[in-house]
């Protein structure tokens, strides 16, 4: 027997076409495929950022000389700083921080100007609002950079000034450079999981499931058919993001296009395996939807998007190995910003292949087993 007989090919084609039509003709799933990805693109691209902007800094200037004035002016001139609040006393400093009028206060020591002029290490006191620890740390970083620049320029000879940070791959630490590639990971996960998980459950609810099972269609043919719409939607969304990231948000894509698409397909397959598993376990579309919710949120949380995987407790790090999002985040960031070559991608691609193979086999086994 030929590997693919015309009949088998006809069956496969029939179910793929049917699945695509069923997805595209249903207004609800059409919306699921198109609207949330676009919405997320703009929400995430514009609203979420770890940059801190428009913050107010208090200054308690006990020096008032050349160097300190220079520092205050530079601080005020920084595009990230909203307003400089001149503080008269430590008590006022305290009350401004408490009322969240300022996020940080800089106390300039009376010896500051003299130390700078003499080329001695000069020090500034920085008081941060610890309630907003994340933002405060970033602000501390900004203040440090500005203080460093004052020191550098005040002196003709180079001196020890602590560390100077240069960020590799994203020199300006532009947050969008990190957000947009991650979005491909996130939106891919949400749309592929939702569409896949709904498909079998929907047939079961409509009563067409049994009609499929009594037809000569093989289990793997049904599953392949079910995977066509999320795969095509995922590739479409991925392409839109790739273009919008470069054209609208100016994020450079440094890597190889063929590798981008190859890894995207592998990523989508692993997600569809998970989605199919949810789908075969759910009896109704509602259960499938809740199941997807149960899977999607932790997957994104564990991916390293919200916080580095290395910061998680060891058991969570182990768990995150089963999360396709975690591996793909490494791949997509690497492709966008670092032009990672295949050898460097492979350690992240391989787990995706394993996850996909395991979940898809489990789903097809369950699919058969649920016939009882």
């Amino acid at each position, binding site marked *: 027997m030929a590997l693919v007989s015309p009949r088998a090919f006809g069956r496969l084609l029939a179910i793929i*076409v049917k699945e695509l039509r*069923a997805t595209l003709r249903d207004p609800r799933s059409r919306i699921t495929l198109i609207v949330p990805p676009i919405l997320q693109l703009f929400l995430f691209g514009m609203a979420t950022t770890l940059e801190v902007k428009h913050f107010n800094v208090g200054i308690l200037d006990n020096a008032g000389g050349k160097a300190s004035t220079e520092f205050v002016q530079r601080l005020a001139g920084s595009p990230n700083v909203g307003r400089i609040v001149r503080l008269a006393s430590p008590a006022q400093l305290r009350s401004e921080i408490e009322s969240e009028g300022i996020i940080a206060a800089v106390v300039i020591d009376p010896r500051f100007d003299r130390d700078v002029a003499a080329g001695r290490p000069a020090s500034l006191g920085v008081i941060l609002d610890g309630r907003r620890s994340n933002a405060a740390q970033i602000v501390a970083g900004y203040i440090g950079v500005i203080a460093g620049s004052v020191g550098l320029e005040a002196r003709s000879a180079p001196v020890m000034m602590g560390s100077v940070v240069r960020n590799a791959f994203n020199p300006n630490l532009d947050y969008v450079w990190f957000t947009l590639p991650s979005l491909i990971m996130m939106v891919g996960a949400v749309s592929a999981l939702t569409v896949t998980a709904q498909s079998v459950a929907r047939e079961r609810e409509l009563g067409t499931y049994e009609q499929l099972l*009594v037809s000569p269609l093989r289990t793997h043919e049904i599953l392949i058919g079910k995977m066509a719409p999320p795969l095509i939607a995922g590739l479409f969304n991925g392409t839109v993001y790739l273009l919008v990231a470069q054209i609208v948000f100016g994020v450079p894509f440094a890597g190889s296009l063929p590798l981008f698409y190859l890894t995207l397909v592998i990523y989508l397959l692993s997600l569809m395996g998970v989605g199919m598993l949810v789908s075969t376990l759910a009896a109704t579309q509602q259960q499938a939807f809740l199941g997807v919710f149960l899977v999607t949120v932790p997957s994104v949380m564990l991916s390293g998007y919200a916080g580095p995987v290395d910061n998680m407790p060891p058991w969570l790090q182990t768990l995150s190995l089963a999360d396709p999002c975690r591996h793909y985040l490494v791949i997509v960031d690497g492709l966008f910003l670092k032009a990672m070559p295949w050898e460097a991608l492979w350690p992240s691609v391989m787990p995706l292949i394993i996850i996909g193979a395991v979940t898809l086999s489990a789903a097809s086994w369950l699919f058969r087993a649920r016939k009882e």
Partner: protein
Amino acid sequence: MTAPAAQARSVTKRFARGAAPALDAVSLIVATGQITGLVGPDGAGKTTLIRVLAGLLRPESGEVEALGAAPGVRAEDVGYMPQRFGLYEDLSVLQNLNLYAELRGLPPAEHAATFERLMHFTDLKRFQNRPAGKLSGGMKQKLGLACALVRTPRLLLLDEPSVGVDPVSRRELWSMVGALVGEGIGVLWSTAYLDEAERCASVCLLNEGKVLFSGPPVDLTARVAGRVQRLDDFDGGSRARLSELLARPDITDATIHGRSLILVTARDAPPLDPTSLGAGPRARLSPAAPRFEDGFVDILDRKSSGTSALAATYAEAPRGGGPAIEAKALTKRFGDFTAAEDITLNVAPGEIFGLLGPNGAGKSTTFKMLCGLLTPTSGSGAVAGRGFAEAGPAARARLGYMAQKFSLYGDLSVAQNLAFFAGAYGLVGARARDRSRELVEIFDLHRYLPVNAGTLPLGYKQRLALACAVMHEPPVLFLDEPTSGVDPIIRREFWSHINGLVERGVAVLVTTHFMEEAEYCDRIALVYRARVIATGAPDELRAQAARNTGRTDPTMEDAFVALIEAADRAREATDLAA
């Protein structure tokens, strides 16, 4: 004359602008102290009308009155039982009653006495702590009724209370509601079962949103009085004879009734002469009592042709060489629950075999095992000569399956549905195109090709479902309640196709609890409490029931009830002995 409990005058309701009206100038009177039947096939507008009367839908035009006020005003005096009973499945029987009592504002002091009375009335006292979801269909329905009666209503609206319920429970329900009517309550009972119409004092017959007939049911049957005859002892098979007789212009309707045929002659036709029928020398005609259904068909004034264009081109199924469907001691257990036990049956090529039984009795389980949807716990079987064990896709390619409620892809057009099923059944290229074109021709689907299957009129949905099921000309057909809820003409058309296919050697297995459908079967297995309690031709089962009960000429439903009661008695006897 007392004021009616409810009435509607020329009520029109459309669900979408420009759509065909769900109700088209419908008028109805629900008199007090009697049961008014709201009768019609699925999609006729029954539920819409009931919801209008209950004040849940506002009509577009027309006047509605319930208990002398606008609908919804006297809500505390109206009992409403929606389809699917409106029960909370996770709450127990008693909790459901309690909830409805609170919702309907029954004074707490009256709770205990009312529940006691209702549970006695419905015989649910033994099950008062069981969750409603775990009750059988018949019991759910009784509980639904009890909830509607928690405050004694003056108007009772029942939306298809008997759908999907076995005849035994159906009879109990009728006698319960009959008792209420004695107390002066006005009851509106909607149903798609035409035999129930005859039990109502007055009937409103709806079809496609229009009232076809309104008045006492005898007035409708009077339309065909003297024109209904029964043909017995004719030569040849009843299916071939039926299709021949339907070709005559003086016969407007004919149906199979066991080994007899029921004929309805045209209005002005001269009396039929048995010798002119070409039905053999022994054929004899006798007058038969007209049924409500005969009157309905007469009003519809459409005639099903009785011949099947589908069968004419259908591949002749192989005869001989053993049964087409075979089950040997099939048993299915789910945990410690036995859904089907020791089921043995054979269906020959060219035979229609019916599985009849109450809901939950095991007929669906048996059906699913035979078409490969369930793997039996023990026992064996074969379809089209291939055993279950080796079955798989090759065996599935030899069977056609038509699920209850036409499970097609509603968001796909008719053409796309056909294309999918052609591909799924391995038809490729020119053959797929030719076969689809042929089916479109046979079922007259041309003008609906670009239309979404979900929005087709019921009759066309059914045609499309059959077209998809026979796409690959299978020698074995599985039909799951294929014609419940469709109008009698659509049902006749459907069965004339099936009859035609059977004449070409196709074997048909059908599940039903619809008595009219049972009449089309050559043999019936009655499934009850997971077992087959009787097998035989419809006439044999009727004869058996006649012997058991002493009734002359029992209906199929009488036979069904009698056989189940006999099985219950036998069970009790063995239980006592044990």
